Protein backbone atom coordinates (compact mmCIF):
# COMPACT_ATOMS: atom_id res chain seq x y z
CA UNK A 1 0.00 0.00 0.00
CA UNK A 2 1.45 3.28 -0.95
CA UNK A 3 -0.43 6.25 0.27
CA UNK A 4 2.11 8.26 2.06
CA UNK A 5 0.36 11.28 3.40
CA UNK A 6 -1.36 11.28 6.68
CA UNK A 7 -1.87 14.14 9.05
CA UNK A 8 -3.88 17.21 9.69
CA UNK A 9 -1.80 20.12 8.68
CA UNK A 10 -1.99 22.81 11.26
CA UNK A 11 -3.83 25.78 9.89
CA UNK A 12 -5.11 23.99 6.82
CA UNK A 13 -8.89 24.27 6.45
CA UNK A 14 -9.89 24.97 10.01
CA UNK A 15 -13.29 23.62 10.77
CA UNK A 16 -15.67 26.06 12.33
CA UNK A 17 -17.98 25.20 15.20
CA UNK A 18 -20.96 26.71 13.34
CA UNK A 19 -22.36 23.31 12.34
CA UNK A 20 -22.25 22.06 15.89
CA UNK A 21 -23.86 25.19 17.31
CA UNK A 22 -26.68 25.04 14.78
CA UNK A 23 -27.18 21.38 15.60
CA UNK A 24 -27.22 22.03 19.32
CA UNK A 25 -29.70 24.89 19.03
CA UNK A 26 -31.96 22.81 16.81
CA UNK A 27 -31.91 19.89 19.22
CA UNK A 28 -32.70 22.18 22.14
CA UNK A 29 -35.58 23.82 20.24
CA UNK A 30 -37.03 20.47 19.14
CA UNK A 31 -36.86 19.15 22.69
CA UNK A 32 -38.37 22.29 24.17
CA UNK A 33 -41.26 22.17 21.68
CA UNK A 34 -41.91 18.53 22.56
CA UNK A 35 -41.93 19.35 26.27
CA UNK A 36 -44.18 22.35 25.81
CA UNK A 37 -46.69 20.45 23.69
CA UNK A 38 -46.81 17.54 26.11
CA UNK A 39 -46.93 19.43 29.37
CA UNK A 40 -49.45 22.09 28.35
CA UNK A 41 -51.80 19.52 26.79
CA UNK A 42 -51.96 21.73 23.74
CA UNK A 43 -53.31 18.94 21.55
CA UNK A 44 -55.45 15.83 21.74
CA UNK A 45 -53.52 12.65 22.63
CA UNK A 46 -53.71 11.01 19.19
CA UNK A 47 -52.29 13.86 17.10
CA UNK A 48 -49.91 14.77 19.94
CA UNK A 49 -48.28 11.34 19.74
CA UNK A 50 -47.74 11.79 16.02
CA UNK A 51 -46.24 15.23 16.48
CA UNK A 52 -43.95 13.97 19.26
CA UNK A 53 -42.77 11.11 17.07
CA UNK A 54 -42.11 13.49 14.18
CA UNK A 55 -40.11 15.76 16.49
CA UNK A 56 -38.10 12.75 17.67
CA UNK A 57 -37.53 11.79 14.04
CA UNK A 58 -36.20 15.28 13.32
CA UNK A 59 -33.86 14.89 16.29
CA UNK A 60 -32.40 11.77 14.65
CA UNK A 61 -31.71 13.75 11.52
CA UNK A 62 -30.12 16.60 13.50
CA UNK A 63 -27.82 14.23 15.37
CA UNK A 64 -26.93 12.28 12.25
CA UNK A 65 -26.25 15.29 10.08
CA UNK A 66 -24.75 17.88 12.41
CA UNK A 67 -22.96 15.67 14.94
CA UNK A 68 -22.37 12.25 13.44
CA UNK A 69 -21.27 13.44 9.98
CA UNK A 70 -23.41 10.83 8.32
CA UNK A 71 -22.80 12.39 4.92
CA UNK A 72 -19.03 11.89 5.20
CA UNK A 73 -17.23 8.72 4.53
CA UNK A 74 -15.03 6.86 2.28
CA UNK A 75 -16.59 5.32 -0.81
CA UNK A 76 -20.28 4.55 -1.30
CA UNK A 77 -22.52 5.41 1.68
CA UNK A 78 -23.02 1.81 2.85
CA UNK A 79 -23.42 2.97 6.42
CA UNK A 80 -26.42 5.07 5.43
CA UNK A 81 -28.04 2.09 3.74
CA UNK A 82 -27.52 0.07 6.91
CA UNK A 83 -29.01 2.85 9.01
CA UNK A 84 -32.08 3.23 6.81
CA UNK A 85 -32.67 -0.53 6.84
CA UNK A 86 -32.13 -0.57 10.58
CA UNK A 87 -34.63 2.22 11.09
CA UNK A 88 -37.21 0.43 8.95
CA UNK A 89 -36.76 -2.76 10.96
CA UNK A 90 -36.78 -0.82 14.22
CA UNK A 91 -40.15 0.71 13.49
CA UNK A 92 -41.41 -2.56 12.05
CA UNK A 93 -40.53 -4.43 15.24
CA UNK A 94 -42.03 -1.84 17.55
CA UNK A 95 -45.23 -1.17 15.63
CA UNK A 96 -45.90 -4.74 14.50
CA UNK A 97 -45.28 -6.09 17.99
CA UNK A 98 -47.94 -3.74 19.31
CA UNK A 99 -50.23 -4.80 16.49
CA UNK A 100 -49.65 -8.52 17.04
CA UNK A 101 -49.83 -8.38 20.81
CA UNK A 102 -52.95 -6.24 21.04
CA UNK A 103 -55.24 -9.20 20.24
CA UNK A 104 -57.90 -7.43 18.18
CA UNK A 105 -59.72 -10.63 17.41
CA UNK A 106 -62.64 -12.20 19.17
CA UNK A 107 -60.61 -15.39 19.52
CA UNK A 108 -58.31 -14.29 22.26
Amino acid at each position, binding site marked *: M*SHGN*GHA*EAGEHRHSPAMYIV*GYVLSLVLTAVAFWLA*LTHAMAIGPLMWVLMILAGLQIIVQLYFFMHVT*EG*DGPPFHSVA*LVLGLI*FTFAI*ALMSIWIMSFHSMVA
Partner: protein
Amino acid sequence: MAVAEHAAHAPAGAAHAHGAGPADGRPLEYRDPHQSVKILGFWLFLATDMLLFACLFATYLVLRTHTDGGPTARELFDIPGFTAETFILLTSSFTGGLATLCMRNGNKKWLMAWLAVTMLLGLSFVGLEAKEFAADVAEGANMQRSAFLSAFFTLVGTHGSHVSVGIVWMFLTLLQVARRGITEITARKVFIVNLYWHFLDVVWVFIFTVVYLSGVVM
Protein backbone atom coordinates in the same frame (compact mmCIF):
# COMPACT_ATOMS: atom_id res chain seq x y z
CA MET B 1 4.69 2.92 2.74
CA ALA B 2 4.03 0.97 5.88
CA VAL B 3 0.63 2.11 6.92
CA ALA B 4 0.57 0.88 10.48
CA GLU B 5 4.03 2.10 11.38
CA HIS B 6 3.38 5.41 9.83
CA ALA B 7 0.19 5.86 11.73
CA ALA B 8 1.57 4.70 15.01
CA HIS B 9 4.76 6.68 15.23
CA ALA B 10 4.13 10.00 13.59
CA PRO B 11 3.62 12.87 16.02
CA ALA B 12 0.32 14.68 16.20
CA GLY B 13 -0.28 17.46 13.76
CA ALA B 14 3.05 16.88 12.06
CA ALA B 15 2.99 18.62 8.73
CA HIS B 16 3.79 16.02 6.12
CA ALA B 17 4.08 16.94 2.53
CA HIS B 18 0.80 16.03 0.92
CA GLY B 19 1.51 13.69 -1.94
CA ALA B 20 -0.90 12.96 -4.71
CA GLY B 21 -3.28 10.45 -3.26
CA PRO B 22 -6.88 9.73 -2.53
CA ALA B 23 -6.42 10.86 1.05
CA ASP B 24 -6.33 14.57 0.37
CA GLY B 25 -9.13 16.60 1.86
CA ARG B 26 -10.55 13.71 3.81
CA PRO B 27 -10.71 13.94 7.59
CA LEU B 28 -7.77 12.33 9.34
CA GLU B 29 -9.74 9.38 10.65
CA TYR B 30 -10.69 8.31 7.12
CA ARG B 31 -7.26 8.51 5.51
CA ASP B 32 -5.95 5.09 6.40
CA PRO B 33 -8.22 2.38 4.97
CA HIS B 34 -7.42 0.23 8.02
CA GLN B 35 -9.07 2.87 10.16
CA SER B 36 -11.90 3.91 7.89
CA VAL B 37 -13.13 0.32 7.59
CA LYS B 38 -13.44 0.35 11.37
CA ILE B 39 -15.70 3.36 11.12
CA LEU B 40 -17.96 1.47 8.73
CA GLY B 41 -17.85 -1.54 11.06
CA PHE B 42 -18.90 0.70 13.90
CA TRP B 43 -21.84 2.11 11.95
CA LEU B 44 -22.94 -1.46 11.36
CA PHE B 45 -22.61 -2.15 15.07
CA LEU B 46 -24.77 0.89 15.78
CA ALA B 47 -27.40 -0.54 13.44
CA THR B 48 -27.48 -3.76 15.47
CA ASP B 49 -27.52 -1.84 18.72
CA MET B 50 -30.46 0.12 17.37
CA LEU B 51 -32.31 -3.16 16.83
CA LEU B 52 -31.44 -4.18 20.39
CA PHE B 53 -33.19 -1.06 21.63
CA ALA B 54 -36.02 -1.64 19.15
CA CYS B 55 -36.81 -4.92 20.89
CA LEU B 56 -36.68 -3.30 24.31
CA PHE B 57 -38.97 -0.51 23.09
CA ALA B 58 -41.35 -3.07 21.62
CA THR B 59 -41.42 -4.91 24.95
CA TYR B 60 -42.03 -1.69 26.83
CA LEU B 61 -44.81 -0.61 24.49
CA VAL B 62 -46.56 -3.97 24.79
CA LEU B 63 -46.23 -4.16 28.58
CA ARG B 64 -46.70 -0.43 29.29
CA THR B 65 -50.23 -0.80 30.59
CA HIS B 66 -49.54 -4.02 32.51
CA THR B 67 -49.13 -2.29 35.85
CA ASP B 68 -50.88 -4.96 37.91
CA GLY B 69 -52.44 -2.34 40.16
CA GLY B 70 -48.99 -0.94 40.99
CA PRO B 71 -47.58 2.48 40.15
CA THR B 72 -48.36 3.79 36.67
CA ALA B 73 -46.13 5.84 34.45
CA ARG B 74 -47.98 9.00 35.31
CA GLU B 75 -47.60 8.48 39.05
CA LEU B 76 -43.97 7.52 38.80
CA PHE B 77 -42.24 9.89 36.41
CA ASP B 78 -40.63 12.96 37.85
CA ILE B 79 -40.84 15.79 35.30
CA PRO B 80 -37.98 17.99 36.55
CA GLY B 81 -35.79 14.90 36.85
CA PHE B 82 -36.15 13.65 33.30
CA THR B 83 -36.10 17.19 31.93
CA ALA B 84 -32.71 17.72 33.52
CA GLU B 85 -31.45 14.36 32.26
CA THR B 86 -32.58 15.22 28.75
CA PHE B 87 -30.87 18.60 28.59
CA ILE B 88 -27.70 17.26 30.17
CA LEU B 89 -27.46 14.49 27.59
CA LEU B 90 -28.24 16.83 24.67
CA THR B 91 -25.51 19.18 25.87
CA SER B 92 -23.05 16.32 26.26
CA SER B 93 -23.75 15.32 22.69
CA PHE B 94 -22.87 18.88 21.65
CA THR B 95 -19.64 18.91 23.67
CA GLY B 96 -18.73 15.51 22.25
CA GLY B 97 -19.20 17.03 18.81
CA LEU B 98 -16.90 19.90 19.78
CA ALA B 99 -14.29 17.32 20.76
CA THR B 100 -14.45 15.86 17.24
CA LEU B 101 -14.17 19.39 15.85
CA CYS B 102 -11.06 20.15 17.89
CA MET B 103 -9.57 16.83 16.86
CA ARG B 104 -10.04 17.73 13.22
CA ASN B 105 -8.45 21.08 13.83
CA GLY B 106 -5.48 19.31 15.40
CA ASN B 107 -6.08 20.93 18.76
CA LYS B 108 -5.13 18.26 21.27
CA LYS B 109 -5.62 20.36 24.40
CA TRP B 110 -9.19 21.36 23.62
CA LEU B 111 -10.00 17.90 22.30
CA MET B 112 -9.08 16.50 25.70
CA ALA B 113 -10.91 19.26 27.50
CA TRP B 114 -14.16 18.68 25.60
CA LEU B 115 -13.89 14.93 26.09
CA ALA B 116 -13.53 15.55 29.82
CA VAL B 117 -16.56 17.87 29.84
CA THR B 118 -18.57 15.27 27.94
CA MET B 119 -17.62 12.61 30.44
CA LEU B 120 -18.58 14.83 33.36
CA LEU B 121 -21.97 15.55 31.80
CA GLY B 122 -22.36 11.82 31.19
CA LEU B 123 -21.52 11.10 34.83
CA SER B 124 -24.09 13.60 36.05
CA PHE B 125 -26.67 12.03 33.74
CA VAL B 126 -25.96 8.58 35.14
CA GLY B 127 -26.01 10.00 38.67
CA LEU B 128 -29.43 11.61 38.15
CA GLU B 129 -30.77 8.42 36.66
CA ALA B 130 -29.46 6.36 39.57
CA LYS B 131 -31.08 8.83 41.96
CA GLU B 132 -34.38 8.56 40.07
CA PHE B 133 -34.23 4.76 40.15
CA ALA B 134 -33.39 4.74 43.86
CA ALA B 135 -36.32 7.03 44.60
CA ASP B 136 -38.66 4.78 42.58
CA VAL B 137 -37.48 1.69 44.40
CA ALA B 138 -37.85 3.43 47.74
CA GLU B 139 -41.51 3.99 46.89
CA GLY B 140 -41.91 0.28 46.24
CA ALA B 141 -41.75 0.65 42.47
CA ASN B 142 -39.08 -1.96 41.80
CA MET B 143 -38.44 -4.25 38.83
CA GLN B 144 -40.30 -7.13 40.47
CA ARG B 145 -43.50 -5.17 41.10
CA SER B 146 -45.11 -5.37 37.64
CA ALA B 147 -44.41 -6.15 34.02
CA PHE B 148 -44.56 -2.42 33.26
CA LEU B 149 -41.83 -1.70 35.79
CA SER B 150 -39.71 -4.63 34.59
CA ALA B 151 -39.87 -3.23 31.07
CA PHE B 152 -39.29 0.36 32.19
CA PHE B 153 -36.23 -0.37 34.30
CA THR B 154 -34.77 -2.67 31.69
CA LEU B 155 -35.18 -0.23 28.81
CA VAL B 156 -33.96 2.85 30.66
CA GLY B 157 -31.36 0.87 32.57
CA THR B 158 -29.91 -0.62 29.38
CA HIS B 159 -29.52 2.89 28.04
CA GLY B 160 -27.95 3.99 31.32
CA SER B 161 -25.47 1.14 31.26
CA HIS B 162 -24.61 2.01 27.65
CA VAL B 163 -23.86 5.55 28.82
CA SER B 164 -21.71 4.20 31.66
CA VAL B 165 -19.75 2.04 29.24
CA GLY B 166 -19.41 5.11 27.02
CA ILE B 167 -17.87 7.09 29.88
CA VAL B 168 -15.27 4.42 30.60
CA TRP B 169 -14.54 4.08 26.91
CA MET B 170 -14.16 7.85 26.51
CA PHE B 171 -11.76 7.86 29.44
CA LEU B 172 -9.62 5.17 27.79
CA THR B 173 -9.65 7.16 24.56
CA LEU B 174 -8.65 10.29 26.45
CA LEU B 175 -5.66 8.48 27.96
CA GLN B 176 -4.54 7.36 24.53
CA VAL B 177 -4.87 10.84 23.06
CA ALA B 178 -2.87 12.19 25.98
CA ARG B 179 -0.12 9.63 25.41
CA ARG B 180 -0.01 9.51 21.65
CA GLY B 181 -1.48 12.75 20.40
CA ILE B 182 -3.80 12.98 17.44
CA THR B 183 -2.83 10.25 15.01
CA GLU B 184 -4.82 8.38 12.40
CA ILE B 185 -5.56 5.73 15.02
CA THR B 186 -6.49 7.95 17.95
CA ALA B 187 -8.50 10.19 15.62
CA ARG B 188 -10.51 7.18 14.53
CA LYS B 189 -11.01 6.21 18.17
CA VAL B 190 -12.24 9.66 19.13
CA PHE B 191 -14.56 9.75 16.14
CA ILE B 192 -16.03 6.33 16.96
CA VAL B 193 -16.56 6.93 20.65
CA ASN B 194 -18.37 10.13 19.72
CA LEU B 195 -20.54 8.29 17.20
CA TYR B 196 -21.50 6.00 20.03
CA TRP B 197 -22.22 8.95 22.28
CA HIS B 198 -24.44 10.73 19.74
CA PHE B 199 -26.25 7.46 19.09
CA LEU B 200 -27.05 7.16 22.79
CA ASP B 201 -28.41 10.67 22.64
CA VAL B 202 -30.74 9.63 19.81
CA VAL B 203 -31.90 6.62 21.83
CA TRP B 204 -32.52 8.89 24.78
CA VAL B 205 -34.64 11.21 22.64
CA PHE B 206 -36.86 8.22 21.93
CA ILE B 207 -36.89 7.14 25.56
CA PHE B 208 -37.95 10.58 26.63
CA THR B 209 -40.60 10.76 23.90
CA VAL B 210 -41.99 7.23 24.07
CA VAL B 211 -41.50 6.53 27.77
CA TYR B 212 -41.47 9.78 29.71
CA LEU B 213 -43.52 12.32 27.76
CA SER B 214 -46.09 9.78 26.61
CA GLY B 215 -46.22 8.37 30.11
CA VAL B 216 -46.93 11.76 31.57
CA VAL B 217 -49.63 12.79 29.11
CA MET B 218 -51.52 9.50 28.97
